[in-house]
């Protein structure tokens, strides 16, 4: 796979990176080899801990203090980077190779005007003098399509939105016309619509300037959409590399296969996400309306600082139904779920269960209400949602003891079996469990009081896609077995589609669209819903459901 290594623009051969930690030496990157041609965009894809970011830091030689390049060779445009002195390397950074990071707000000096931060780079690489710096910095802001660049020049990072900050970071990276840009998860933490804008901007700028670029991401769909070639990493090693189409059509490595399969995509059913695929669990028969939300409204603050988080929304959930609540950060979906969960009192409006109002009991007193047990929730971050001083058993027993007449002994084991948590793990503390195991504990705890409605608050947002696929399947199975209703809160329409009968799209506290999942996905009527759908990157149409038919009979064992 090295047709003319000499001509490669960036060539990484057998790279190893080690970190010295409390537990000894950790091999974060082990013998990684990849290369990049001029003008090419390379995607490095992997889940957390795969060593994808560390490899690029090694290329830039900006590893943190405890990290060390233990072996291998990095050649950039014919120069052996490891032979350069620190001073020479600093000359190269920013001028020849630049980098864009995730979490853009933190990536900018909080107490320095963004214009000055761009000037620092320009003047460092002698691209500008004192007199021309300001004009050039404004040009750089213009290049990343920031409106009103003269005014933004004087802004501090805290005065800009996340997407805007990322544009500034890109402006800094591109200020000196480097020939290689490394983007490390540049859109993680941004909303999908902002992600789209930032990715388009990066693609346009690198194309128009003839730059090479590396996109590091956990999102296969994103890499497939924007990259010419993809390298898949796992546990510090490259497991597969190649053209995205070919990779998706015929993945060679079992890990790549699983990764591709786990990525939610059009056409795939929930059972198709696991390797090997399973038949998707049946959906329960819909019954009478269980929960009714009537003109719900929530206002925070007083007087001039008032902000309306939720603005007059109404909807129903029937027994056995799964309703998706979709929207970007700040749309009011979390506030809505907190109110339904009776953790927060609405400013006005009503929430009814079985036709009887629940809002007569204030949230502060609801913990002792007999209906507490019938409304439960699975939280976004499983790690954060389990008391660090409780074992899994204690966490699951807590609601049993407080909300039911049952004895925890026996019932805990029953729940563990339901969610597929091995009994041996019950006496472990959260820090001794994996992300997927913690998610199972969270689900078991939510089911402990035999709820009728379960709010799933982005239950998979913090998980890697392969774990997400397993958890989604578990949720579908539980629904089929228990007939419980779900309110599935998410920012990702493609995930919502897998599980939900109906969808509500929220924006700025209001419902902009509501309807059956399939029809909204196929023909959204609201422009905002359409932009949400468009913005989500879609992997190449591979692994069609019919293509995997023969494997269907095998059982999933995770």
């Amino acid at each position, binding site marked *: 796979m090295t047709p003319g290594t000499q001509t490669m623009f960036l060539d990484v051969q057998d790279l190893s990176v080690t970190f010295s930690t409390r537990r000894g030496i950790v091999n974060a990157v082990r013998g990684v080899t990849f290369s990049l041609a001029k003008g090419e965009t390379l995607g490095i894809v992997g889940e957390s801990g795969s060593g994808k970011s560390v490899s690029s830091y090694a290329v830039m030689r900006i590893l943190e203090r405890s990290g060390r390049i233990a072996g291998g060779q990095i050649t950039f445009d014919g120069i052996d980077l490891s032979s350069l002195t620190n001073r020479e390397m600093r000359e190269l950074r920013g001028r020849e190779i630049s980098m864009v990071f995730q979490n853009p707000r933190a990536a900018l000096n909080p107490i320095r005007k963004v214009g000055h931060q761009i000037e620092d780079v320009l003047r460092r690489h002698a691209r500008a003098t004192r007199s021309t710096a300001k004009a050039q910095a404004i040009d750089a802001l213009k290049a990343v399509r920031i409106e009103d660049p003269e005014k933004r020049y004087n802004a501090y990072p805290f005065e800009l939105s996340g997407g805007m900050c990322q544009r500034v970071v890109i402006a800094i990276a591109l200020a000196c016309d480097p020939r290689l840009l490394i983007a490390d998860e540049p859109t993680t933490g941004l909303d999908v619509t902002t992600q789209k804008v930032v990715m388009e901007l990066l693609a346009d700028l690198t194309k128009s300037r003839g730059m090479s670029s590396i996109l590091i991401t956990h999102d296969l769909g994103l890499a497939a959409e924007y990259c010419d070639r993809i390298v898949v990493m796992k546990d510090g090693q490259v497991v597969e590399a190649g053209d995205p189409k070919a990779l998706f059509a015929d993945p060679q490595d079992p890990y790549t296969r699983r990764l591709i399969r786990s990525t939610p995509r059009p056409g795939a059913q929930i059972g198709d996400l696991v390797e090997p695929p399973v038949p998707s669990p049946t959906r329960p028969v819909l019954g009478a309306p269980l929960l009714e939300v009537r003109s719900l409204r929530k206002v925070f603050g007083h007087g001039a600082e008032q902000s309306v988080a939720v603005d007059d929304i109404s909807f129903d959930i029937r027994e056995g139904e799964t309703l998706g609540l979709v929207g970007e950060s700040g749309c009011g979906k979390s506030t809505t779920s907190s109110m339904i969960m009776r*953790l927060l009192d609405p400013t006005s409006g009503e929430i009814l269960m079985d036709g009887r109002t629940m809002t007569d009991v204030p949230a502060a007193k609801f*913990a002792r209400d007999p209906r507490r047990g019938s409304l439960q929730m699975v939280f976004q971050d499983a790690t954060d949602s389990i008391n660090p001083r409780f074992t899994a058993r204690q966490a699951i027993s807590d609601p049993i003891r*407080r909300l039911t007449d049952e004895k925890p002994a026996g019932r805990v084991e029953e729940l563990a079996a339901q969610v597929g948590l091995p009994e041996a793990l019950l006496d472990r503390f959260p820090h001794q469990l994996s992300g997927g195991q913690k998610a199972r504990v969270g689900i078991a705890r939510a089911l402990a009081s035999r709820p009728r409605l379960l709010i799933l608050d982005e239950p998979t947002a913090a998980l890697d896609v392969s774990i997400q696929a397993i958890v989604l399947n578990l949720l579908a199975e539980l629904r089929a077995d228990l007939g419980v209703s779900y309110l599935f809160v998410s920012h990702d329409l493609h995930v919502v589609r897998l599980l939900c009968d109906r969808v509500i799209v929220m924006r700025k506290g209001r419902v902009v669209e509501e309807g059956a999942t399939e029809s909204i996905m196929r023909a959204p009527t609201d422009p905002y819903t359409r932009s949400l759908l468009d913005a989500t990157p879609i992997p190449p149409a591979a692994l069609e459901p019919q293509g995997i038919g023969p494997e269907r009979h095998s059982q999933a064992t995770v």
Partner: protein
Amino acid sequence: MSPTPIDSRQRGFLDHVVYVLGENPITAIAFALFALIVCVALFGPALAPYDPMESNAARALEPPSADHWFGTDNLGRDVFSRVLVATRLDLMISVAAVALSFVIGAAIGSAAGYWGGWIDAVTGRFVDTIMAFPLFVLAMGIVAAMGNTVENIIYATAIINLPFYARVARAEVRIRRDAGFAQAARLSGNTDLQVLAFHIFPNALPPMMVQISLNMGWAILNAAGLSFIGLGVRPPTAEWGIMVAEGANFVVSGEWWLAFFPGLALMCAVFAFNLLGDGLRDIFDPRQRT
């Protein structure tokens, strides 16, 4: 609860403690020093070779010797015995003061952090008012106003320690108030008080333990400082601060041991508590290491 979880957790915890002690032998020294101080406080009077109050004009102002390890003072009293015996009083004052301010500070800080609103506003104003004084000066004023007794030294030291606990408790409770596990606890049927007491407070305790240790050293310093300027303990009671104050007059004429040894004891005690605090910080929260 079955014993397995405790075992596995404790083994991990003990490993970690052993690791921290091995990594930083100074922490081990601090633990040893701390144990020594506690022993001396408990058994000091029994260990002292002489009666700390018995004067002997014939042997006044003798430098350290085999008979009198730390020399004798201007009344011929054995400095070593006095230093040993003083440990209990100094430790008692600071333990009492720290315990008092921990209990009150943790309670009001937790309430302020959990409920916010007017409780937070009122306690915040109260704490700010204490902090508006230079703390040692406030302690001086309190003891001067309330009367020059050992109990009042304890109260004054407790008052000036209070803001630290209230602030730590408030901050630690506040960051966990809306944490997922606190929300989950509410959903599991815990009332607010139960969420605070059983779920949030145990998790906020480790940082407070660190604060206790660091404050203990500071409390000893303050109490000794107050007696150094003539507040609280009165002669001829053996107490480190007052011994240094009495010995100070002899330093300019070269009789250094009168002030030096009680000062050294004081320093070692404070040093032990400060190191202990750093060690506890390493054990409980490796991320906060500085």
